[in-house]
């Protein structure tokens, strides 16, 4: 297509865009809703990972020894544990430490402290706190401790609760993501219908012009192209509006989210900055693809040229 024709096609598209202003507003709005919910999906994905790593980083296994176990035995177990390749670190908590910690935890609860006093002696055994390189390694480490050589001196190992917590975090974030995906898909579908209808109305509004164009010998490309250009315009405007909603929302909510997760690693804006090309490209590409496919459907159906 020649330069003048291209300019004229763009002019036609802008006319459509401006003339059917209410349709344009509706179309852009639903595209914005779709894009915003897609970005919520992305954000949830990021936050889900943050939540998981926050939980994971706090995970360790506490091995409580019986109060009567000799400290040397405990040190032997520690050395054994450190010799395992899966183990990153082992912290030793003496009987006295365990008591102090207990007192600190429950200092507000007079009843419990009193009950402890009645026991008369330190009821706690020493504790080894094990952290592994990988979450998946814990079961192996636990299994190693099941050896009768160690099992006899160990009173309790607590790990299972945290596994349940990880599972819960994973489940919740999966569910949230699924929900966001469903919402995005629903908006996407509505967007498709609205775009289809807008183009139909747009074609209808230009019915006479199109009839004349055909009879005076305008090429079918020239007649169709403005509708595609219009779809591109919608996509650009929708993406811009979406950015104006999503980015300030992230900026505003970031401190609260960091607080909530108790970590500094909530950085949605940072994530977006790092993946800007990919995110903008994918979202613009998807919007454009969707509106162009719809335009193709609409023009094939309503534009007999």
């Amino acid at each position, binding site marked *: 297509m020649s330069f*003048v024709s291209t300019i004229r096609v763009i002019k036609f598209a802008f006319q459509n865009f401006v003339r059917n202003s209410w349709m344009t507003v509706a179309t852009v709005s639903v595209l914005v809703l779709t894009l915003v919910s897609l970005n919520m999906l992305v954000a949830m994905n990021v936050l889900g990972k943050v939540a998981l790593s926050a939980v994971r980083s706090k995970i360790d296994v506490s091995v409580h020894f019986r109060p009567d176990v000799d400290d040397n035995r405990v040190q032997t177990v520690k050395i054994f544990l450190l010799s395992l390749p899966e183990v990153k670190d082992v912290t030793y908590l003496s009987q006295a430490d365990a008591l102090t910690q207990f007192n600190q935890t429950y200092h507000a609860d007079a009843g419990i402290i009193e009950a402890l006093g009645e026991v008369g002696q330190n009821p706690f055994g020493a504790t080894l706190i094990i952290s592994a390189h990988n979450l998946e390694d814990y079961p192996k480490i636990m299994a190693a401790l099941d050896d009768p050589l160690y099992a006899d001196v160990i009173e309790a190992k607590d790990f299972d609760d945290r596994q349940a917590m990880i599972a819960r975090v994973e489940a919740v974030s999966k569910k949230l993501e699924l929900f966001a995906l469903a919402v995005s898909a629903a908006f996407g579908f509505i967007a498709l219908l609205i775009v289809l209808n807008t183009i139909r109305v747009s074609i209808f509004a230009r019915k*006479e*012009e199109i009839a*004349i164009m055909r*009879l*005076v*010998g*305008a*090429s079918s490309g020239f007649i169709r192209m403005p509708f595609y250009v219009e779809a591109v315009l919608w996509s650009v405007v929708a993406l811009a509006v979406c950015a104006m909603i999503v980015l300030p929302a992230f900026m505003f909510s970031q401190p609260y989210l960091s607080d909530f997760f108790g970590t500094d690693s909530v950085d949605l804006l940072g994530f977006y900055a790092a993946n800007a090309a990919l995110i903008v490209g994918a979202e613009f590409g998807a919007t454009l693809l969707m509106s162009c496919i719809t335009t193709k459907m609409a023009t094939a159906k309503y534009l007999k040229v």
Partner: protein
Amino acid sequence: MIRFKNVSKTYPPDVIGLQNVNVHIRPGEFVSIVGQSGTGKTTFAKMLIAEERPSKGQIVVGGWDISAIKPSEVPLLRRQIGVVFQDFKLLPRKTVYENVAFALEVCGASAKKITSVVPQALKIVGLTGKADRYPRQMSGGEQQRVVIARSLIHRPKIIVADEPTGNLDSLNTREIIDLLKKINEFGTTVVLVTHNRDVVNELRRRVITIDRGMIVSDQEEGRYLL
């Protein structure tokens, strides 16, 4: 210039538009196609510009067999045939000048070409002074002259006019027919579809009469028969 060979057109499911039509129209002729309503005159005109395809037979325009013309080639054909159709109106929101220019614009003509050709076309139809008017500010006859100016814009070898005087009084009708005659004198082949008895009888040119899809008479210097 135009040749129909054994052309038949059946609209689905089985409505007959034209039946076994054979016509040869030479360059520079002024041919009237007459016949009662619903006999296939518009079908004839539409097949000439590939708006409809023949169900059978062959149509050749200027040496080009358009019986099975590709959709992408139709615009090329349309730029060589000027069309004045019944339901082919002016755009109300454009001025006379813009309406005529529109036909060039959408075919990719340069701005320079548009500014030189549009005034020429308006001059031929005698509307030079009314270029800035809107269609609603003009009489039916004047509007039809704008349509003719638009059909001339690609300097076509052929003009097809389907009932161009259908809604006009006798004075305006005469003006339009005179204009078509003038265009014909410049060498353009004119195919005029009409059921106006007076027009045909006064023209004293070739008359093809169609009845129920078939050519029932074809006379040089003919008269309106039905």
